[in-house]
């Protein structure tokens, strides 16, 4: 874990701005609720998607694809470990919170479905994550900037791999096209949430910690349209946005995912593994 950066006057000013009570705390400290909240969003996205992808292990369309999916899952679990570790104790955050405290978006908690839906989900998420992390490498928060600098390369690969798969499946057989359209239909509702800016994000952006996703929404939509175009697929019509994940209001799927993921630490709360 990177050590705390030196305290600069502008940090103190920021810290005071975010904490109107004037309580002094190191600006990059985990106790900063805006910072911690933002790290949780990022960390939970990676954790939950990593967990989902790891469900494929041993069941993929070919041995090679099994290796690819596991690589992505490992990258994501690694990111989650770093991000949650900055927000607090990574393991207790991962294994001891309930749904209302998880801050991930709806998209990543969606069940894998078939390989087409998994790849569409990956394309929609990784493209967004890549554009976001590119910006986060310039975060005022040195720890986050460092994590983003490492992760941005991983995510660039995920994004390209997912795009290549969506193109092959969209422009493959009649069956694969149908399945990809289904996956797209399933996932499209959750795209607006990626660009939602609530008070928490607003504050984190103001503090120089976060990037404003609205800055790259047009770029994102153009890129997705380009990939879908190459896949011979229409860009879906916008549906009513499904929101809430960032405030702990999730789909029904997350509870089941957590029940599985958290079962051991919850059953044996005193055990060390």
């Amino acid at each position: 874990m990177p050590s705390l950066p030196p305290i600069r006057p502008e940090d103190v000013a920021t810290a005071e701005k975010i904490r109107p009570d004037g309580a002094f705390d190191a600006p990059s400290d985990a106790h900063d609720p805006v910072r911690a909240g933002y790290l949780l969003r990022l960390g939970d996205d990676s954790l939950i998607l990593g967990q989902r992808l790891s469900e494929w292990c041993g069941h993929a369309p070919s041995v090679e694809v099994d290796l690819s999916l596991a690589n992505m899952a490992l990258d994501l679990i690694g990111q989650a470990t770093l991000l949650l570790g900055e927000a607090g104790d990574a393991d207790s955050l991962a294994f001891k919170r309930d749904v209302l405290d998880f801050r991930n978006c709806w998209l990543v908690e969606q069940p894998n479905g078939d390989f087409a839906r998994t790849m569409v989900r990956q394309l929609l998420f990784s493209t967004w994550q890549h554009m976001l992390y590119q910006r986060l490498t310039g975060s005022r928060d040195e720890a986050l900037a460092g994590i983003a600098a490492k992760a941005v390369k991983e995510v660039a690969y995920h994004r390209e791999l997912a795009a290549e798969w969506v193109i092959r499946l969209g422009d493959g057989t009649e069956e694969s096209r149908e399945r990809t359209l289904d996956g797209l239909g399933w996932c499209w509702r959750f795209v607006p949430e990626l660009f939602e800016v609530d008070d928490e994000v607003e504050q984190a952006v103001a503090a120089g910690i976060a990037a404003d996703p609205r800055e790259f929404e047009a770029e994102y939509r153009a890129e997705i349209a380009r990939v879908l175009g190459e896949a011979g697929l229409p860009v879906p019509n916008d549906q009513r946005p499904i929101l809430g994940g960032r405030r702990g209001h999730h789909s029904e799927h997350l509870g089941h995912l957590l029940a599985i993921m958290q079962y051991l630490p919850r059953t044996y709360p005193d055990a060390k593994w």
Partner: protein
Amino acid sequence: MYTTELSKQPNVQSIEDPERLAAFEARVAADEFIEPKDWMPEAYRRTLTRQISQHAHSEIVGMLPEGNWITRAPSLRRKAILLAKVQDEAGHGLYLYCAAETLGTSREEMIEALHSGKAKYSTIFNYPTLTWADIPAIGWLVDGAAIMNQVPLQRTSYGPYARAMVRVCKEESFHQRQGYEAMTSLANGTPEQKRMAQDAFNRWWWPSLMMFGPPDENSPNTAQSLRWRIKRETNDELRQKFVDITVPQAEYLGLTVPDPDLKWNEAKGGYDFGAIDWDEFYAVVRGEGPVARERMTARREAWESNAWVREAAAAHEAKRRQRAAA
């Protein structure tokens, strides 16, 4: 193990050009490597294809019992380790299928032989992983036994197989260590964790010993396989070595070896151990292991329900070529 336990087909000596056969035997005896396009006796090709593909199947089916715990690993660190480990096994399966393919059988044919029940895989993977402690137990015991068998195979006579085994052995080096480390946490843990650890040890100990295959006197091909350098030590030699190394490791953890007849034999400088239940072993070889059906169903489902993905990618490539040609 994955490779030796099931070689029970009778010694087939097909009719070959005696001169070429003699030259081949001389090369192998001189520890030369045989390469894919070299002349080789049909029986060598057949035996190797069976051995390597069996080994590959074992790696792939072996992903399932451990894969069963990836989503439930108790910490982020253990989750990443387990996923990386199971992913390695996929890689091993891949290297080995490729090595076997150089002998002229396609991977698809091998996979179909597995799914039809014609091809075998290691018996050990037909037991369930019941608790988390099974994960450390498998890493420690099953990978430990596998390493013991695989290290000598790095010098096996068939070049592609030997090279695959070099890569496999390099990657295996963390598998057993992570298992033992995780077992240590359990053995030093809460009473529930200790109970889990001992229970897993009790269930995996005997199947691990069976991984080395039937006793030498019931292993008809051993002599020929040793001569051909596709096996480098006998089943019983390897089994004894495994027991001698593993028992002190179990004692260090405070685990009891589930064998009342186990005792140190000063004269031979090794342990004497109780009789192995070979009826159990052969029942599992016949496909009667407790979760044999689950394993084959999972593999068939992965292959068949995703056939459309493989077809789609191939169709896309065909279209792309057509467009490029137009």
